[in-house]
């Protein structure tokens, strides 16, 4: 389990318009590229200072490559990060105001308290 790395993916993709679009259009390619090139980047540092130990589990990789926000929630990914990125990618596909957000919530409706732990 690497909740931190999943959150790092969501965080770095969400804050970059180009990466947000790339992840929407090509999730598998974007996740593979990101894990190979970006996962170990220590933010604010040069390449020579990259970390050496970060990688996704199979379940995490699958959840990200299939845009499975329910699985991400169940794994304890930070819900604010997932929601914000999903709004950026998918709100445009719904006609009604908040249509995307309500659909997103409905797909999580089977989950009761306590929610999965989001501590990293």
């Amino acid at each position, binding site marked *: 389990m690497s909740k931190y790395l999943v959150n790092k993916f969501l965080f770095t993709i*969400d*804050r970059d*318009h180009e990466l947000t679009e790339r992840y929407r259009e090509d999730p598998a390619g974007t996740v593979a590229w990101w894990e190979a090139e970006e996962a170990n980047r220590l933010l604010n540092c040069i390449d020579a200072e990259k970390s050496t130990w970060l990688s996704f589990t199979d379940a995490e990789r699958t959840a990200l490559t299939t845009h499975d926000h329910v699985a991400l929630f169940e794994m304890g990914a*930070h819900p604010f990060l*997932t929601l*914000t990125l999903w709004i950026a990618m998918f709100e445009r596909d719904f006609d009604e105001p908040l249509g995307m957000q309500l659909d997103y919530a409905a797909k999580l409706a089977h*989950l009761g308290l306590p929610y999965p732990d989001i501590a990293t």
Partner: protein
Amino acid sequence: MAKLVAILATTHHPFYFKTSQLPPEEAPPFAAPWVSAVEAYRETLTRARPDVLVMVGSDHFHQLWLDNMPQFLIGKAPYYDGNWENEMREFGLPKLFFKGHEELSAYMLREGIDKGFDLAFSNELRVDHSVTCPIFTVRPQNDLPIVPIYTNIFAPPLPRPERFVQLGKTIREIIDAWPSDLRVAVIGTGHLSLELGGPRQFGPHGPDPEFDARAVRWIADGDIDGCLSSVTLDSLHAPGNATHGFMDFMLMMGIAGHTRADYADNLDLFHTMEAYFTWYPDPSLIDGPPLTSKGALL
């Protein structure tokens, strides 16, 4: 000594700015009462005539990140940029530019550390909507220098509610003792019950109206003890998964002390309860006739 002229504690709603800019024919039905409530609330700050604003909020994973996460941070910079690209994208918030007040920042850091809070600091901070939203609501001319204070209500492990109240009390002591002639207002924003990214998000009301009803009474009545006896780090999960933002209200209650608010209003919106509180620690510092209204909660 400085004069603490007003303490404002309010929800921050990133959609207010966009909603308030809509022409009437495009505005949803809730827009007009929302704008009215905010404009009435704005008057509570205007009449206090502050010279500098201490702004309490919480970064939403914009600049503060899990590789280096402070619990409490004070900005110390001559200027601050405001709002982020993904806030422009999601909320339609424009970017802002603030003057800072480095002397007060430095004083608060020194005194806060000496009083038992190992405060982090930032010399280059782009503040997010937790700080910019109250500027849009209560000081849209954005003409005053600020001291931003960030709290971690977002990335566990979080400080406990008692710690937020204690930090509020400490901030009050520090401002009251600041050797300055300036008039200081503190504006803090948080949440009542709130769910984001979970099954209860964006419902017709906040996820827990019963919690909201109790919470606004604790704040309006200055009932710090009642609030602390009912709220724990664990209990805040139940009203909604983003309800830990309520601890910023508790910090503001710590600043105000065990005192009834002078203005208390709330508004049931489509997925949150909005709430607006103001305290005047020394009413003799406030000019003019009494407020037209003390808000719906008083």
